[in-house]
């Protein structure tokens, strides 16, 4: 009986050792994977940070203003370019744009309608 028990314990020990080794190996591999992923994440994050900084530099309003001055005839919006639909009617008569249905919120619709009217009736289709 003792012999059987001892043999059983030996086998158990061997199985436990093998299981333990396997678990350790898996943990080691997983840790290695995590480390790789974390390293990749840091690299990606740094790359994203660089790109965001670059985008911020490219979108710097001073830079854009200089380019716009040099390459286009764009100018800052003036107040006379913004009016309500009623004012538009009063200024320009019954333009088709004004009578067109609007799906916008009341606060913004007048300005947007005016912009669409300036772009032409096709823009309202």
């Amino acid at each position, binding site marked *: 009986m003792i*012999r059987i028990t001892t043999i059983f*314990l030996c086998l158990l*020990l061997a199985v*436990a*050792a093998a299981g*333990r080794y396997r*678990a350790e190996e898996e943990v080691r591999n997983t*840790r290695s994977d*995590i*480390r790789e992923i*974390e*390293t990749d*994440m*840091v690299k990606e*994050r*740094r790359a994203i*940070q*660089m790109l*965001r*900084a*670059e985008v*911020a*530099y490219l*979108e*710097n*309003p*001073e830079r854009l*203003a200089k380019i716009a001055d040099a390459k286009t005839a764009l100018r*800052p*919006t*003036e*107040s*006379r370019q*913004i*009016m309500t639909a009623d*004012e538009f009617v009063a200024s320009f008569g019954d333009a088709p744009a004004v009578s067109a249905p609007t799906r916008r919120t009341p*606060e*913004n619709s007048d*300005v947007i309608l005016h912009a669409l009217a300036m772009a032409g009736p096709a823009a309202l289709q």
Partner: protein
Amino acid sequence: MFFRTRRKVRPTAYLISCAQPVQPEGAREQVASSSVQRRRIVRARARILMCLVAFVFTFGALGVRLAYVSFGDVAPARAFAAAGRDGGPRPELVDRNGAILATDIPMVALEIAGRDVWDADETANAVKSVLADIDAPALAEKLRAGRYVEVASDLTPFERRAIFSLGQPGVRFATRNKRFYPQGDLGAHVVGHSEAGKGGVMGLERYITAEMAKATADAPVRAAIDVRVQQALEQELQATMTQFKALAAWGAVMDVETGEVIALASLPDFDPNAPGAAPPDARRNRATYDRYELGSAFKAFVGASALEAGLAREDTTYDARKPFKVADRTITDFHGENRILTFSEVIQHSSNIGAARMAGDLGVARQKKYLDELGLLDALPIELAENRSPQPPDKWGPVEAATVSYGHGISVTPLHLLAAFSAVVNGGEYHTPRFLAVDGDASDERASNMVFSEETSAIMRRVLRRVVIDGTASKAEAQGYFPIGKSATADKPSAGGYNRNARIASFIGAAPGYAPRYAILISFDNPQPGEGTYGYATAGWNAAPTFSRFVNRAAPLLGLTPVNEAVALSAFMGAAPYREARADLEPSAP
């Protein structure tokens, strides 16, 4: 084998213990044989014991390890995962719309360990072949001395590859974070800058460093400024500064509802990426740190105080026919109307005499009380370290009360003036200026208090509108926004008095005037008469038109919609409280 031996020795051991008086033939051999068997038994037992100990030890160790793995601390793995999340040790600074103002970017530094270098001259010359601006002999000297040298702190990827391919021993690359300011000189005095090893040394950068313990690198710090409005302000200030050959210019835009500073400029300015390249004077924040006697803008404060104290109405009259004597001081008007003026006309035509008479009615104690409530007697508790306390008169008697009423004898920072003016036009509530955006829990432990009533504020809006329509600042008009405001031209103090040929020209106003949302200050240091100004260099000729251009340009960015005359008039004359009027008229505010 081990078990077989154990069984065999048992009977023999019994024989050994048996007493025999007479030893038979061969007994000696038997005894010798049993002695050998005994030794074997002892040895076998020792082996068993050893095996037992080994088993116990092994199982015990495995058990302990198993328990440790099962129940032990897993912090190392978490710590590792956390360590990977280092996007930069300092939080990003962004504007109110999320545009980056300051961020950390990873840079590669080139370092050479002198001890590992075989040939110092060869290494130095090789590095110089890639980085032309280094001093090769000096580098070689340091390497020969075995020193560890940082050759460059910001290599480009190309330079890194080129140096790596040189194959020189002792060359190392280290990753560093460098603070980068993508907006360049835009809003430089608000953003500030940092120095290696010190962190932020100015502006919000300094604030971030000081508050690092509370901030996390993951969450950006959101400033109140809007870079688009900032750019419009700086460009308009610069254009006028150049046109009128002013020494300096400054300006600011403040949300009168929250106290948020939407833009703040001080020219000349500097690039935070290379702060050392600009003279120290350019790094000085004139809008928050310098104190000036800002002149007639103070008439709005004495006027509102007189109204609030019940000492004046819109139609109250003041005698401005002759100079006004207060003790030994005679007060005159710059452009005297030389007639009796109404309350409104005193401010409209910027009458020093009328303002001094109002201050006389108000008295020193009440004047000080209102100026104190408007924050004009104490330092502003703002995020920027670059701020100063105002400089009120040492002795505040009737003469000082009279001069303070038109902004002489009291020095305040431009931001003090802007915050106080906001309270005059916004329904009477004073807000401390803030440079961080108001979001969620960031609001609001700051001081805000009611200084004036809605009625006083409404009267002041009408009066200040008349300044633009038919007063000293007709060039401040901005179609559709009906701005209100007050021009102020103050002679600069000099030894023994004031210099009549050096002045600070300012216009402080608000838009839209009928229900102000933004208070705006524009100032120039010593502008000169220019083309078409008929020899004048007063605020009405330089600061007021700059204000007008800025409002026209910035209002669409700020979501302000122009209205027609009828709407504006009804708001100016209406009895509706300011906030209700604004809510009705400004639905599209951002």
